[in-house]
């Protein structure tokens, strides 16, 4: 079978799973959807593997609806990467949902539908069908978010999510309309070939960036993410954070880089700036959350910021014709997309297990789970280390490439770049420092310390399938990190092919380099080997002193100044971030800044509704009623002619006869 056939098979399997789960009981539907999700993802993976070996990008046209165009799937390099991403994470979430998803027919149906729509979105080559399936994706995820619809907040959360997504889709729709107006077609190929005036291109960029950015959750359009991810079931949150946000970035890449052709400098700068802002604010807001899912959601905002920084740098490189910068920027962005999908999926699934077993999302009510849920704790730790960019895991690799891209940009002749690139690097570092705090808080709050609630005391690891999914994602994280010297060139090839730039060298043997070994080299596998190997040093040191002979006792309470120890004395998640909040208080100023106009808008709205309510019967009062009154009065007036008195009627007849006689005979004169 060819790759495109595997792809269509994957789609079919997802759809079959969705439909089949409609007819099953709630518990069975969960298994059915999970099963088909899993084999569908495997099929998509096979499609990716085969596509890598085929020469030309595989494509398939299913049908055509005029005048919208043909419905064609095409797996060019970027689409193949996205399909791989969806398949890899989809497999994990499907495996997880065998036993740890809600037993709910709606959830099962829409999960598979969601995955299918995402597969279509990243491979279709026509703007109309892209938009249709983009909205189907939103629709499916909306129903997943409001699955507990008997709770009052779920309506509000789902509504805000759908509204923001719909506004974004409207912006994207206008983008495509502008393309259609100039190119006369909705097909991507036609749009690429058309000549579009640069003013229109600028407008298209702004609309598309905002439209896709709303879905990607970048600042300032991020406010829907915490509530939405918290409300959705965990495997759905994992899918949304890991995969759906990446389809939004894919949209930016596809529309703003691929379809628009070259690039204007200010576009790249805009993307870079918003990326940097998202990075800092995302990490900072994540600090103040005590709900684990909201924390992870805001951390996703931070990571999307890092991806956007890479995209922005790539676009700047394209605009200035710096091939190295372009290649590095896009490489960093694509690599971070892949990495983030893995470790964020891992973190959300792990969080899901924890929430499931402890019955709460509040970090302050967990604790001590590292002993009771060892697998979850271990994999969550791997995820936490990865997301805080600690070498040698994958988060470090993509952040390293981002830094190298910033360095490359800072070395250019353009003054604005020389000024801002290092400052953005500083913001990245600051966000990284915040991220360490966030994840120490998350891991520490959930897994360390004493158990702070009844249920936490008796938690245990989730079922085997879920544990396997967690371990699989953790292994993927490690492989992406340690295997970077061999994976980076592949992704660089995707970036180069997509941006139509020459390929640059990003690795040599066991090391990675940013285009030239003179700038720097780094080898994550070497660091990993050394770190593990050097653990021998302290062991030897202790042995040298004869320390291994001493015994150990572990049945004591922590030191509490002589008071009896109680679990409430331990530092909880909420008390963890107080010093930072105080030191960095100005960063919260943005939130308070938004409050005032919001309240003003609410008041304005109430006043407007009142005036509309008064305006509604205006026509009624000014036109209809007077007219009806007039008709009535006229009618009554005429009615006086018909009094009912027969003598009056005789008088009418005589008068009429008289007039007729006069007219007929008086006129003629005879």
């Amino acid at each position, binding site marked *: 079978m060819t790759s495109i056939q595997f792809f269509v098979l994957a789609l079919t399997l997802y759809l079959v799973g969705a439909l089949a789960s409609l007819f099953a009981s709630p518990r069975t539907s969960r298994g059915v959807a999970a099963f088909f999700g899993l084999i569908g993802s495997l099929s998509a993976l096979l499609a990716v593997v085969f596509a890598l070996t085929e020469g030309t990008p595989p494509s398939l046209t299913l049908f055509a*609806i*005029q*005048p*919208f165009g043909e419905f064609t799937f095409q797996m060019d390099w970027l689409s193949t990467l996205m399909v791989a991403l969806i398949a890899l994470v989809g497999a994990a979430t499907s495996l997880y949902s065998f036993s740890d998803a809600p037993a709910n027919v709606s959830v099962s149906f829409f999960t598979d539908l969601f995955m299918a729509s995402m597969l279509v979105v990243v491979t279709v080559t026509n703007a*109309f069908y892209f*938009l*249709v*399936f983009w*909205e*189907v994706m939103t*629709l499916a995820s909306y129903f997943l978010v*409001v699955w507990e*619809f*008997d*709770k*009052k907040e*779920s*309506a*509000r959360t*789902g*509504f805000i999510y*759908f*509204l923001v997504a*719909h*506004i974004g889709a*409207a912006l994207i*729709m*206008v983008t495509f*309309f*502008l393309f*259609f*107006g*100039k190119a006369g077609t909705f097909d991507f190929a036609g749009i690429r070939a058309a000549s579009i005036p640069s003013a229109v291109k600028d407008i298209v960029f702004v609309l598309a960036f905002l439209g896709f950015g709303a879905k990607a959750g970048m600042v300032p359009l991020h406010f829907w993410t915490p509530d939405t991810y918290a409300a959705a079931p965990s495997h759905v949150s994992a899918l949304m954070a890991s995969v759906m946000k990446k389809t939004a970035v894919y949209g930016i890449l596809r529309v703003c880089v691929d379809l628009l052709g070259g690039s204007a400098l200010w576009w790249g700068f805009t993307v870079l700036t918003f990326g940097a802002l998202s990075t800092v604010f995302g990490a900072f807001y994540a600090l103040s959350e005590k709900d684990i899912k909201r924390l992870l959601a805001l951390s996703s905002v931070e990571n999307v910021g890092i991806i956007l920084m890479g995209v922005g740098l790539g676009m700047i490189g394209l605009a200035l014709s710096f091939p190295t910068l372009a290649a590095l920027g896009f490489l960093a962005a694509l690599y971070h997309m892949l990495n983030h999908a893995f470790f964020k999926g891992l973190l959300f699934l792990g969080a899901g297990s924890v929430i499931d077993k402890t019955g709460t999302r509040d970090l302050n009510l967990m604790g001590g789970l590292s002993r009771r849920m060892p697998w979850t704790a271990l994999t969550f730790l791997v995820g936490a280390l990865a997301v805080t960019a600690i070498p040698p895991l994958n988060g470090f690799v993509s952040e390293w490439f981002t830094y190298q891209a910033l360095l490359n940009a800072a070395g250019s002749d353009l003054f604005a770049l020389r000024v801002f690139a290092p400052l953005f690097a500083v913001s990245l570092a600051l966000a990284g420092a915040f991220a360490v705090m966030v994840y120490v808080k998350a891991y520490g709050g959930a897994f360390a310390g004493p158990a702070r609630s009844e249920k936490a005391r008796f938690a245990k690891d989730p079922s085997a399938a879920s544990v396997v999914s967690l371990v699989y994602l953790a292994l993927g994280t490690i492989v992406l990190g340690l295997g970077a010297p061999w994976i980076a060139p592949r992704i660089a090839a995707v970036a180069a092919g997509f941006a139509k730039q020459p390929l640059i060298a990003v690795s040599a043997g066991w090391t990675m380099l940013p285009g030239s070994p003179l700038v720097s080299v780094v080898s994550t596998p070497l660091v990993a080997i050394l770190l593990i190997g050097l653990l021998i040093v302290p062991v030897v040191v202790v042995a040298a002193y004869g320390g291994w002979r001493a015994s150990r006792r572990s049945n004591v309470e922590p030191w509490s100044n002589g008071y009896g120890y109680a679990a409430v004395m331990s530092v909880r998640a909420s008390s963890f971030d107080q010093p930072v909040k105080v030191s960095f208080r100005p960063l919260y100023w943005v939130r308070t800044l938004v409050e005032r106009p919001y309240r003003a808008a609410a008041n304005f709205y109430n006043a*407007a*509704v*009142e005036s*509309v*309510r008064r*305006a*509604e019967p205006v*026509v*009624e009062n000014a*036109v*209809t009623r007077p*007219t*009806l009154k007039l*008709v009535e009065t006229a009618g009554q007036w005429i009615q006086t002619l018909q009094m009912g008195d027969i003598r009056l009627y005789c008088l009418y007849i005589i008068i009429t006869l008289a007039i007729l006689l006069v007219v007929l005979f008086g006129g003629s004169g005879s």
Partner: protein
Amino acid sequence: MTSMILVSILLPFAGGLLTLILPRGWIKAFSAVVSLLAGAAGIYVLAAFTAAGKVDSNADLLYIGQWLIYGVTLDKLSVLIGAALGLVGFLIVVYSTGYLTDKNREHPEKEVERRFYFFLLLFIGSMAGLVFASTMLGLLVFFELTGVCSWGLIGYYDNEKARKAALKAIITTQVASLGLYAATAYFFALTGGTRLSDMAALTDGAKTAIFAGVLIAGYGKSAQLPFHFWLPDAMAAPTPISAYLHAASMVKVGVYIFARCIVSAGSVPRIIGIVGASLAIVTMVYGFAMYFPQRDMKKLLAYSTITQLSYIFFGLSVSILGSQLAFNGAVMHIFNHAFAKSLFFLVAGALAYTTGTRMLPNLRGVMKKLPLIGVCFTVAALVVTGVPPLNAFFSKFSIFAGGFQAAQMNPWLYALVVVAILESVGSFAWIFWVFSNAAAGQPSEEVAAAAPLHPAMAFVLVTLAALTLVSGVFAAVWMG
């Protein structure tokens, strides 16, 4: 095919007359059968037309002397709309058999009233007659007939409010129809007949005058500014009537005659397009603004209908300015909106039937207590706001795309299209918010005490929901 068209026109007329003399117990079943046959005839015409390769044709039927009084015309426009209206008519009759019973908690009915089914069947026939008419006189006659039937049906409950509403409706549409009278008379004077296809040969000035008259009549019948105010009050009618007349068919008469004249006239003077587009946007914005104070679900839906109709007017006007895509979109929207809006109205009716109220503040937690109605409610809310893959998206998309296409030559059109898109998003926000509040959460008092739904009504709701899922793609493929 012509004979089938005549069946779909005359059979309901005959059936309507028969309901006046049949025994009461037979009326419901009889009406259902008659409307089923009429609807089937419409669908047969659609199938036959498609099979014959969608070739336009005309058939002249009724002459007085050498003047053609009535003929039928078969083209994409008439066949598609005719099929839709017939199908929806049948569904409405079935729904009414369940709705107008004593189990209805909002308006219980003691016994079957003849005049309801009489007027309804007459109306179904008149609509078919209008849609297939190939002469202006035919348009006019059936235009007036639908007005009379509407009066009878709006005032059905025979209380103070209903009578006033009926009177307001008929007076307003009558005043507006003077435009159509003038247009017909002028047309007759110019061409010596009222055959619509003769319009293509007229001068631009004449066309402008005729179109102006047609537009005035259309605005009245389709509740656009400044003749819009009868529609919200017409909600005093029974809900199936609101669904059929005031969402699916009678209000479509206005847009239909406009579309029919555009097709017949070949090239239309640009001024009509400019005026039409601008007035459509004005109505759109006004209708949108009127959403916010509404507490009665049917009134909210009435204003939503007004804005949807202005979309169709906008699409038709834009097509005059140079976009076939917009015309197709407008026609598709007539088709799609019929299913979508009637579904929404019937959901409102179902809610009133089971809970006794249709006031939005009192409706909470519908999904939990009444899942079938809840699901149909969801589909309706999504459809009306234009979310794919439901049907309204395809037609709205085509209208907007056509707008951008025409805007290449008319840059001022960009502003109007943007306003339309903004309104679409705004509508989505408000209607979806209203829906979210009503469907989610814990059931309110009224909902918690809901009675079960009549099976006929459930059947119709599910059928319409399924239709809204497929009709969009179907229409897009069929028109394209």
